[in-house]
């Protein structure tokens, strides 16, 4: 009854299933090589920035760009110090002294002397304080709100959640103008508390959505079993939900940290000196003699390294993080 099948019948090789034959291994290796090449190409800018951070000032702006050089900390020194140009005479005197510490020796190469530390370390500290505090509050309030949204059907829940997320969709500039006025009025302009308050509310919408995604994945039965066993809702939340949501809370904390650490627009417009964070100040690192690319690269490197490391630590949750917890796994 069946047709006698003949090998000459049209055969199309499907890309998926030829794992049966040997062709599969070759096509996978070719793919792998191309993928690695692209990955390296994508990282060339970051690597180049890292190299420039250790070049001396002339090497940084050499044309054509040099790849092999002996690294020096000049970039970092000019990033972190305030310097003064020395007159020819002063330079001669300094040359003779042998008690100069390493930074001053480097500064002397450019005929300068160090007169104090630059504003950069303080700005980096500001970044840390503001990002850290705002993350703490946003995740704290976020986990409570996320639990409430996840477990109870609150009237108008979806609209409320949409309202919370749409906060995050607004361009920073649009929101800054009114807040600038409010802060001027209330005296919160260029204050740490002002920035923490703003970043907390900015991160809150993100934390609520992301944490709700994590808490949704914790089965309700655990809490209900506790309720039936005689625990109150609060104790069930504390003893059962929180311990299981730890990974979610950790991921949300780190994502909030990265977002507030990277933030530029608010910092640019709402701070000038006291609470100024690193992002707005890195592009303006002007040495005394023209743009010091080595110093700028050093500033960028110091700023980006923690983010690169965290990205690797977080790679499992990257998908959820960037889509606000909406898309979890495929």
């Amino acid at each position, binding site marked *: 009854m069946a047709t006698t099948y003949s090998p000459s019948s049209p055969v199309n090789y499907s890309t998926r299933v030829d794992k049966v034959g040997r062709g599969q291994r070759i096509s996978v290796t070719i793919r792998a090589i191309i993928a690695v090449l692209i990955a390296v190409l994508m990282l060339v800018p970051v690597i180049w920035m890292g190299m420039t951070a250790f070049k001396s000032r002339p090497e940084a702006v050499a044309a054509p760009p040099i790849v092999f050089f002996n690294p020096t900390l000049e970039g970092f020194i000019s990033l972190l110090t305030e310097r003064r140009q020395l007159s020819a005479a002063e330079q001669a005197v300094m040359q003779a002294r042998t008690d100069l510490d390493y930074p001053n020796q480097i500064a002397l190469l450019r005929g300068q002397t160090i007169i104090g530390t630059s504003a950069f370390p303080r700005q980096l500290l500001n970044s840390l304080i503001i990002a850290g505090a705002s993350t703490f509050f946003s995740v704290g309030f976020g986990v409570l709100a996320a639990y409430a949204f996840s477990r109870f059907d609150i009237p108008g829940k979806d609209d409320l959640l949409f309202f919370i997320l749409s906060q995050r969709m607004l361009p920073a*500039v649009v929101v800054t103008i009114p807040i600038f006025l409010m802060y001027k009025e209330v005296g919160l302009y260029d204050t740490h508390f002002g920035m923490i308050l703003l970043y907390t509310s900015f991160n809150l919408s993100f934390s609520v959505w992301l944490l709700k995604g994590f808490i949704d994945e914790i089965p309700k039965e655990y809490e209900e079993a506790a309720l039936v066993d005689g625990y109150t809702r609060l104790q069930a939340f504390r003893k059962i939900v929180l311990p299981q949501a730890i990974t979610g809370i950790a991921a949300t904390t780190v994502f909030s940290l990265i977002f507030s650490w990277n933030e530029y627009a608010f910092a640019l417009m709402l701070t000038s000196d006291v609470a100024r964070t690193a992002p707005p100040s890195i592009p303006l690192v002007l040495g005394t003699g023209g743009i010091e690319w080595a110093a700028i690269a050093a500033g*960028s490197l110091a700023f980006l390294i923690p983010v690169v490391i965290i990205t690797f630590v977080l790679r499992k949750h990257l998908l959820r993080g960037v889509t606000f917890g909406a898309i979890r796994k*495929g």
Partner: protein
Amino acid sequence: MAQVNTVKPAQAAAPRPAARRHLSDRRIVQLFIFPTIILLILMNIFPLIYSLFLSFNEYSVISADAPRWIGIENYADILSDAQFWHNFGVTGTYALISVALQTVVGFGLAMLLRTKFTGSGVVTTLILVPMMLSPIVVATFWKLILNPSYGIFNYVFGFLTLLVPTIIGVIVVALLWGTLPKLLGEQRANIGRIALLILIPVVAHLVWRFVLSQEGTYGDFFTRVTYRETAPEWLGEPALAMWAIIIVDVWMWSPFVMLLCLAGLSAIPEYLYEAAAIDRAGGWFQFRRITLPQVMPLLLIAVLFRTIEAFKQFDLVMGLTGGGPGDVTETVSVQLYQLAFQGQFDTGKSSALAYIVLVVIIAVSNLYIRALNRAREG
């Protein structure tokens, strides 16, 4: 299951009913949501209302006199101002081209990284690093890279264009993948593939070097192509400035599209391909009828999300060109910043402009969140 032996009083005394102090669920919900709502109202709703009021006034924060009600004059001025429409056009083209490129590059990367190989996890994460970096810092060191004299971009770009023949070679081999075994038989097919991979680039390069162009460093290639004397000044020349921003944006955000596509691809059940294989479906059919339809929803979300972000772009433009040269790359948000925080500090007018942008963004993000919810339920 009670102990059979302990005699339990038939009428078990019910433990004291609700006398015990514990919060009802409704109270807990209110308590948990209260801080979030208060903060959002304080820092979002109130400022927006306040700025809406200001948008109908003439007011500058640095001048002493109070806001003067002028009705919709601010809006009229903006909408009739050619500069506004120019900036809107700049933002639009920027968003369109950059998102289109990101989608193509991202989807291609996802198809490439789809089958797991040793270390594919690390490679994928490496590619994802750029999008996690702070845009302003990225703009800063890209300024260094794009510099015509001491930036490496031109050199790498020049080298890359040399790679084009190799890429052509790979594509030709991929296309002939199925037919080679027919022509050369099963065993010799692989030898044929490798031979092609080597021959095509070499021939292409020789033809290029000796037939079409003279000596010169790789960088020369680019100057040769655009018939110019000096190497391209990406951030200085009006024709190239927008492309520079697009290149950096694509470099930063195509991994985002790749990540979503990978999620879509990994959700496709294996047995669909196996069924297609048994039904003798060709590679192209499987792509068009199985892979694409399954990935489309997530790809749509990536495109929508990137469109919104491109529309809001501020950090990259400020970092790279500050809107220059002239106003070639001045997006709406940059204009808003200049209007509100530089020059005449015209708070009233900038609030009006802010509201126009707000309306557009809310409309687009509304689409986005609906698509997001569908994907979540889907």
